[in-house]
């Protein structure tokens, strides 16, 4: 490939300009607006009881949803790639559903299922609260972030093939040992990338969680819901501050993976 320098630079400028307009400038604006009146107001907003509760609840969503989706995702990817079956295309399509369906619709469907008159309404009648409490929010978070680990793991599994696993079995390793010592280390970056995307998705989930949580301040409000509430109440500094925390959490996740990867490559 030897494009002329002029056109090469032109393309770069176009790409960078596009990213700047769409991603960088809005993010920088958040930073700017947050600290417009000094560092005090955003910190106050975040350290308010409701703000701290929202932060804790968001982290709780991550801590529950991400491991579950990771285990499910790896298992499902193994099933799709290593066990050829006629049902695979169907499973594959179902896994993509959360990508295709709007989160609001997902939230609504959970509401219909667990709400008054729904199939699983007996749970609430027997004192097991799903809607407007943590279990429902976890369900919504898992639903919307389910495909990431599967999607990132499947291609890596296909690429490594079965030679290494078969070699391990001829050397005496059973299925479990082969998985831990050969398969998992070989697909770890695919899985890690899936985990990062899952985490980011759970951190930022708004639509589905709004519906099932009821967004009760200090009880069922995650950070994104907190941001929205602050914004609606004309407390824009608080909204910006909370947004910034969200953005930072996502960035930390990304950098953590990059750091791990760099350490590995060195």
């Amino acid at each position, binding site marked *: 490939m030897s494009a002329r320098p002029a056109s090469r630079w032109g393309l770069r400028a176009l790409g960078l300009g596009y990213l700047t307009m769409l991603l960088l400038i809005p993010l920088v604006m958040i930073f700017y607006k947050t600290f417009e009146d000094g560092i005090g107001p955003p910190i106050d907003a975040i350290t308010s009881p409701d703000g701290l509760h929202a932060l804790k609840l968001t982290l709780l969503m991550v801590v529950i949803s991400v491991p579950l989706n990771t285990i499910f995702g790896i298992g499902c990817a193994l099933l799709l790639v290593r066990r050829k079956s006629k049902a695979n295309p169907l499973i594959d399509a179902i896994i993509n559903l959360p990508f295709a369906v709007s989160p609001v619709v997902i939230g609504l469907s959970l509401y219909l299922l667990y709400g008054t008159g729904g199939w699983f309404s007996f749970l609430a009648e027997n004192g097991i609260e799903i809607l407007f409490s943590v279990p429902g929010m976890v369900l919504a978070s898992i639903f919307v972030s389910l495909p990431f680990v599967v999607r990132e793991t499947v291609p890596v599994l296909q690429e490594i093939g079965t*030679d*290494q696993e*078969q*070699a*391990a*079995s*001829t*050397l*005496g*390793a*059973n299925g479990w*040992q082969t998985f831990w*010592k*050969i398969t998992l*280390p*070989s697909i770890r970056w695919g899985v890690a990338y899936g985990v990062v995307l899952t985490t980011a998705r759970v951190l930022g989930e708004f639509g589905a969680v709004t519906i099932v949580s009821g967004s009760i301040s200090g009880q069922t409000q995650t950070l994104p819901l907190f941001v929205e509430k602050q914004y609606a109440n004309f407390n824009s500094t608080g909204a910006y501050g909370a947004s910034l925390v969200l953005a930072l959490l996502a960035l930390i996740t990304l950098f953590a993976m990059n750091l791990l990867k760099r350490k590995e490559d060195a």
Partner: protein
Amino acid sequence: MGISVEGARKRFGDFQALDDVSIEVPDGSLTALLGPSGSGKSTLLRAIAGLEDLDSGQVTINGEDATRKPAQKRGVGFVFQHYAAFKHMTVYDNVAFGLKIRKWKKAETSKRVHELLQLVQLDGLAGRFPSQLSGGQRQRMALARALAVQPQVLLLDEPFGALDAKVRKDLRTWLRRLHDEMHVTTIFVTHDQEEAMDVAEQLVVMNEGRVEQSGSADELYEHPANEFVMSFVGEVNRLGEHFVRPHDMEVVLEADERTEEALVQRIVALGFEIRVELVLGDGTEVWAQLTRSELQRLELREGQIAYLRPVQAKSFNGSSPSRTPGASTPQGPTDEGDAEVTAAV
């Protein structure tokens, strides 16, 4: 003792990979499974290792029925064409893998691994990762890894197929010597008849999921059971019902009752050996292998008429001619399901 397979059958979809195959591999011998792509040789090897389940038939390893045993309990060492190196482990950890699974003590593991690395001439590269090794080094590492657990049998699936010609030749000499030292029953799969004859004591020629013939290299070359074996273990010309090796084609300048008239089309000098391509009266193309001095004595020129006298011809009445490997006859369904199809190209 050794390995024996009885009546092995295996079908992938509508492709019959193994069709009633039986072989006997004597204890401590080095046997080659030889055949074209899709002949079932890799499938047979993988069935012996337990990496492929047979539809029917029996596999016996050192007197023990292994047919239903999983791969990890068969005590086989397996070497893959594309090395199957554990990419995330160092050379040391690759070789130590089977020992760690068997819970060997650290000191003993270390001693054994270094012995093996010395044997395969990789001592000093123990800390490297497979990506830092050449193809030949990777394959020797894979061999050390397979030998580490002291397998009862060693199975090699086109082990040198992915290497360049020079390295391939070195490694096969080296494998031969290694086998002489270790005496572990060894089967290796190849589509290269020269490699098979060079390394193995016993050859099993396979075609279309069946065994065509087995025996020593000499037996197969001198007394091929059919046309397929004759043309697979060496070059062959077809003269009507007769098959003649190019070095058994005598070229003379005087006709007599046993000769056939031919036109010299092309003379190719390949070093000491000269390849003379001729066309017979009925349009059949054949070639004769001469030495340089024979050519000089005959003073052959392209475009002249000469006479051919087959010194030794064979005919196989009753063997189906459709099973000849050659450009004119397709090889049957070869693509489906057989691991070696892509590998052997």
